[in-house]
Each structure stands twice: as C-alpha cells, then as structure tokens.
C-alpha cells in the first residue's frame, strides 16, 4: 500500500499566502483566548485540593456540588469523567489531607451510598507557584536548546528562522485549544507540550535535510521549486509517521484514563499542528526570507587582500 503511488507534485509554495493567513488567524484567536479565558490551571500550578471519586452508580454532578457546598466547602468545582467518576477541585486550604478526606467522605455520604476516593492531592499554593515557575524555565530552556541547535545545524538563519517560527507556532496552537476548551492544564500537559516542540521540529528538520539535498543536486534550481520538491518527496514519510504516532496517541486518549487525557489531547493537537506547520509554514517562511542555494552551500569567497609581499 502507498498513500501516493506516484511522486506527488503539489505546489505548496504557490499557495503559501493562504496558509500564512490561516496561521495568523489561529494565532490571534489563541492570544485572544489567553487574554479573555486564560488557561484552566490545575492544582499543580494554583495549589489546592483535587479529589477523584468513584461512585457505584451513575451520579449527577450538580448533586455532588450541592452536597459539597452544603458541607461548607467554598466554590467546589466538580467535573465528571464518565458517568461514575468525578473530579472535585477545591481552592487551597490549611487543613491536611486526612481532614479533607473525612469531610468530603461525610459530605458525599449524603449524595450516594458508597463513594470511593481514588486519589487525593493537596498542593500548597507556594508549591503551585514554584511548579509554575519551573514549568516556564523548562519551556524556556527547551526553546533555547532548540534555537542553538538549529542555528548550528543549518548554515543559514533563513532556515533557522523558519524552524523557530514553527516551533513557537505549534505549542501556541495547543495552548490555544486548551484555553478555548478550558481543558485542565496540569504537569503532564506541560510534558506533552515539550514533547510536541520536539516532535514538530522532527518533520521540519527532515524537510530541511531534503532541501539541502535538492540544492546539492542542482544549485541552479529555483528556490521555490527546490522547496516544493523537498516537501513532496518527504510527504509520504511525513504523513505515514504522523498516522502511526496518531494511532498510539488515540489509544492513549481512549484507554489511558483521566490522568492521561489532557496529556494525550495535547499530543494529538500538537501532532496535527506540527504536520501542518512543517508542510506549509516553516519552508515558506525560509523562502520569503530569501533562501537561495548559496545560503545552504556558501561559495568560497576569494580573500580580498593578497598575501604577497
């Protein structure tokens, strides 16, 4: 089986203005969402209490919320996972885990006969703030490391700039979707976003590798044509790899349980965004920055000053 039996010849570069527009629109939408809705930070970052409860039968979320409010819990957030499982989030408290567990068990005993607490987490607000800082550092260092790598790897800043734009583009889209859907943003999601940064570049690098090869084959090749050829020649591989990765991520999404839901969603969105940006954005940016064969293979300049005495 083959996706494309013959070598494809899509004119990706010709339509690049359309894709620039789409990307710009998505970026703006993401930023508007950050500004208005913000991210739904999980207790990892805000501090507070998170409790997973499993009921023997299907349960009404509103009832759980009412039960907790009646028991004196201030603004409990209750979210359901499947019919029988709920996640309860409470703002930071001064009580210890046992006390909260007891109070919640008591409050829920009025709602359903036997509720089982699976997981209980208490994160101090100080720790939450620190985790947020260290997540930012992790993000910063990953980007820095990748920038340095790209600057060293490709001899021209035009390719590096294209790759960097893609690297920033993809995680912003992931966070944008998380902001719009208000999916809880926790530590595993940060890990997924970093993995997305790594993966999204993976395609871009493979395409760039091929661009170098095209120019090597013929330096006279028109830049736009060389880029189109490079993308077309790697297209099968790009799609194939992403389909396979998507298969496993979808398995994680549906079978991995609530802990990994956000993580798998972030990866899935990231894979789609990464594929899109490496086909339509990163090379196009390099072209518009004036990429030519001699940038990839600098011609040896003759020294201006001769060394004869």
């Amino acid at each position, binding site marked *: 089986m083959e996706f494309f039996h013959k070598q494809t010849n899509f004119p990706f570069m010709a339509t690049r203005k359309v894709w620039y527009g789409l990307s710009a629109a998505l970026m703006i939408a993401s930023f508007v969402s950050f500004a208005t809705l913000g991210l739904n930070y999980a207790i990892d970052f805000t501090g507070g209490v998170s409790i997973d409860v499993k009921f023997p039968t299907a349960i009404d979320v509103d009832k759980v919320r009412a039960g907790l409010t009646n028991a004196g819990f201030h603004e409990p957030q209750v979210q359901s996972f499947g019919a029988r499982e709920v996640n309860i989030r409470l703002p930071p408290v001064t009580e210890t885990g046992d006390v909260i567990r007891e109070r919640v068990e008591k409050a829920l005993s009025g709602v359903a006969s036997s509720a089982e607490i699976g997981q209980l987490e208490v994160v101090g607000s100080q720790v939450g703030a620190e985790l947020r800082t260290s997540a930012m550092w992790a993000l910063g260092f990953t980007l820095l490391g990748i920038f340095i790598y790209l600057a060293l790897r490709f001899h021209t800043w035009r390719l590096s700039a294209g790759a960097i734009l893609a690297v920033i583009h993809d995680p912003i889209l992931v966070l944008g979707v998380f902001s719009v859907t208000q999916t809880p943003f926790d530590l595993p999601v940060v890990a997924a976003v970093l993995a997305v940064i790594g993966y999204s570049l993976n395609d871009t690098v493979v395409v760039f590798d*091929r661009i170098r090869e095209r120019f090597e084959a013929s330096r006279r090749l028109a830049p736009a044509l060389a880029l189109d050829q490079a993308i077309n020649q790697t297209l099968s591989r790009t799609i194939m790899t992403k389909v396979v*990765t998507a298969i496993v991520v979808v398995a994680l999404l549906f079978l991995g349980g609530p802990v*990994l839901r956000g993580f798998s969603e972030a*990866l899935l969105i990231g894979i789609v965004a990464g594929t899109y940006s490496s086909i339509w954005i990163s090379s196009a940016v390099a072209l518009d920055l004036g990429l030519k064969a001699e940038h990839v293979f600098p011609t040896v300049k003759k020294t201006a000053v001769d060394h004869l005495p």
Partner: protein
Amino acid sequence: MLEYARWKFILVGSVLLVALILALPTVFGQAPALQIARKDRANIDTTAQASIEKFLGGHNATPVRSVLEGNRLTLHFRDVPQQLRARDAFNNEFAQQTYVSALTFATRAPEFFAKIGLRPMSLGLDLRGGLYLLYQVDVTRAIAQVLDSYEQQMRRALADSKTPYVDVTQVTVGGGGIQNAVRVTLPPNADADAVRAVLAKSAPDLALTTTTLASGPAVQGVLTEKQIRERQDNAIQKNLETLRNRVNELGVAEPVVQRQGLDRINVQLPGVQNSAEVKDILGKVATLEFRLGDAQNNAFEAAQRGRAPIGSKLYKMRGTGEPVLLKRDVIVTGDQLTDAKTAVTQEGPGVAIKLDARGGEEMLKVTRVNVGRRMGVVLIEQSRETVTVNGKPVTRDVTKQEVINYATIRGVFSNSFNITGMQAGEARELALLLRAGSLAAPLIPVEERAVGPTLGQENIDRGVNALVIGMLGVFVFMAIYYKVFGLVADLVLLSNVVLLTALLSLLRGAALSLPGIAGIILTVGMAVDANVLIYERIREELRNGVSPQAAIRAGFEKAFSAIADSNVTTLIAGLVLWVFGTGPIRGFAVVLTLGIGTSMFTALMGSRALLTLMYGGKRKIARLPI
C-alpha cells in the same frame, strides 16, 4: 551485494539477548502482596508462616504464593481486594503485638530471577498506590535553637562571673530578615571589652563585637552566613536521617526519603493509605528531658501564683493536668538516648530506656545522692496548628511540654531504666519516636498526594491496555503498508520495547509511572519514524530503477542524517524535562530520552541486520516486498 559486518550481527544479537533476559521479570508482572516482618526483626520460622497462611485462609484471603526470606514474609494475592482483606484481617489479629505489615507489589517471576539479581521495573506511586508527602523544613527554627543555646550560655557566664547586665536578647543584624544574633545590653559606663572577654569563653565559635547603642554599650555575637548555612544544612540532614528512621520503624515496603531542592524533603510511602497516624509520626518533633523534682516547694501554690520559684519550672501532669514542680537543671535529654523499647512493668505499660555513656554517668551521679526523691520525665512535642484570627487562618508553632512520669527514685541506676505512666498505645508511639531520634527543625507539609490501591491497579491496567492496543494498531498498519518490510519493522519495534524495558529495570532510581507508560507508547509511535524514513528512501531508490539490494543499502545510508537530526530535537526536550521534572514527569522524561537511543539502535542496526539476513549475500532478488 548487500553485506553487514559480522561484529555488528553479533552486537545486535547479544544486546537483544541480554535485554530479553533483563526484561523477563517485568514480563511476568507483579502481584499485590503483603509484606510481613516481626517487630523485633527476628527471623520468621516456617511454623509461623504456616499459621499466618492458615489464619488468612480462614478469612477468605488465602495467599496464592508465600515467599519467606529471612526476616521477611511476602504473601502474594490474586487481586487487590483480596490483598486489602488480608491486610485488614492480619492487622486486627497480629499487628498490635508481634508483626508489622505493609502493602506492596511483588514480582510473579520465579525466585530464580531474584537469585541472579534480576528484578522487575519498579512502579511509581500512581501505579501501585501510596502516599507522597513533600515537607518544607522550617530552617529558621533551627537557627532559633542555636541562638537559644548561645543565649543560655551567655546568661550563665554572666551570672557565674557576677557581671552586671541589662538583658540578653536575640536580634536581627543586617538585612537577613530572620534573627541571627545574640546581644547583651549593658548598663551605661560598663566596660564592654571586659564583658566581651567573659562572654568569649562561653561562646568560642561566635564572633563577638562591641557596639554602643542609645541605651549604653552592648556586646553582640552575629552568626556568619556560613554558620547559618551550615546549621540549616545540618538540620536538613538530621531531619532526613530521622525521617528515614521513622519510616523504617513504620514498616513500609521500599520507602523513598530524599532531599528536594534547598530545604524540602519528599517522602514516598508505597502501599500506605490515607493514614493520619503515619503523618502524625513523621512530622512530630518530640524529645524527652529528665529533671529532678523540687521537694522544697509546693506545686499547687506555685500554680496558683502562676509562677515557679527560682531554680524550678512549673509543668502539668499528662492526663490529670496536676501541677508539678521540677528543677531547672536538666539531667539528661533525649539526644543521649541510645535505645527505647516498649516494656511491660509492674506499674503498667512503659518504655525501657538505654542511655549513652555520658548520659548514664550523669544519671548515676544524680540518682546516687537522690534515692527516695522524685524525678520527672518531660515530653516536649512541637506541632503546628492553624487558628482563625479575624477571619484569616494563621499558622503558629505550639510547643507542648508535659510531665509523663513523676516517680520516686527507688534505687541507683545509670544507663538502663524504665519510664512508665502511659497507655500501651502511647508507650509504643513514644518508644518509636525516641528510637528514631528527634527532628532538628519542624516539618511543614506543603504537598500531599494519595493514590488508592485499587486506582493504582486500574492505572496499570489502563496503561497496559493502551500499550497493547496501540502497538497492535501500529503493527497491523505497518504490515499492510510495507508488507514484509512492515513485519520486519514490527519485529524491530517489539525489540525496541524489550530493550527499553530492560534499561528501565536496570535504572533503579526511575520508577515507572503512568506518564512513563505513555512515554513507552509514544516511543513505539516515534520509533516507527526511523523505519519509515528508511523504507521511503528504499522505495524512492527502487522507483529510480536501482537494484533491490543497492536500494536497501542506499536507503539506510541516505536516511541516516535525517534520522539523527530529527531525534536531536526530541532529545533536547527530553533532557530538559529530566532536569526540571519531578515524580511522574521525570519518569516520562527518562523513558522519552532512553527511547530515542533504543529506537535508533534497533531501527538502524537491528533492521539492517535482519534485512541483510533476508536479502543479503549474492542472492539474486528480483523484487522487494515493500
């Protein structure tokens, strides 16, 4: 012609063989188990083993396997509910007396593997259930203790030398924010230098300076930053040690107690469930003081006046609240204790105490001349409590000092004696706390995560399910897309998972978490990439009319740079996560990083070797099934 060096075949073969053996214990899986040990750490004999098994059988919790290794008995159970049933029944029957039990997971692999040192991957708390606690060490308290002791020494030195002074106080010098100095304020016209000389003897390691304040001259000793840092470090080290001792006393299987960052300690207790008792014991700052009773004065009068006579201190008796007067001078403190055990005495339950040589000497000196008088044992407990002041919660330290025993000295004793006057449960807890040592600075819990045992098992099932289904999906898809070459890729993927499992079982520090399993699944997806890059190259070469064998060779050669390049970026992200992540996230990072290495090895060397075996040599190949 398609060839591959012989040493490379041997390398690939032997690496995979070793990996397979290392990964085997993990493949057998782990069973929910109960680990049982005697409280006195003596060996368990087979008779006791049989009677425990029989007892559990009577409670519908017959162990499916029972392994006795010296002083540890591990009972395997069919499932988690049965394990919990067994734990409850066992604790009701035995735990108060002879045994401690701990929930754990034990490998299903035959004992043979353990004998040759092969163990399965260790599982994180999210997979096996347990309690994770993060404590902040209150290091400012450790500094306060140092200042307290300097203050005491200085007051004593001033009194001994009959030097007149106004006051001794603890003050903040410089912009540190915490109190870091002891200051002796002197009356006007006092000779500050002479006082400094007197004080220097009492506090030789404190740099003393003289200053002039508005009220008159003063001598002060400021802790250097180095001294403060050392003291804080010591406090954290001491706390780590104490916590380890306490955790060991609790009887938890495979606990982890480690320092995290500057002033935090994280404690991981697999199998421990929401146990208020555990946290109580871990966080308790308790120490003992032995003081002689004050026979000259009446304690009730002192209590009415609300003030103790000079040279004495007023305490309350535990339980009754009766006032007790004890001498200010401490005979022996808890630091000089070498052992503490519960004991049954004529006066009821108690703790048998053993002191070190110096403590024993002091005790001997005091008891020799004081037979017939009374001695008090003071238990000092520090805790934190949160109270609401003006609608805002405020946390404050509370120090509780109670006399737990006030008895007549019946004879001369030195380093070995009993203290009584408590319930059986209290005696057990006190003995444990004394044995484990006291904390050098209070611990404040800042993070707490508890995962129930059934949820842990569920997480394992979910992870394994996702792994199996995801891999099957990839296998089928690859086989359809690349035919025979797809099957080769599938074999390579499988060996990649085996290799990764082997590496993870070797790395004892990194426990497998649910995100870690996700990392393995993701690695499977990503490892395909290398194969895809190679195969697409081979197809391209074939399309260009290159002969099959040359196409395979060219495919591997030309795809190499793309494979290496595309993995570097993921490697960067993985390494950063490894450095910044903690707990489950670090587990993910470890898997991600190792996975890059194993997938490159298997895809580049493993599949090359396999394809060379299939299509190599001087055979004539007309077409490749790709």
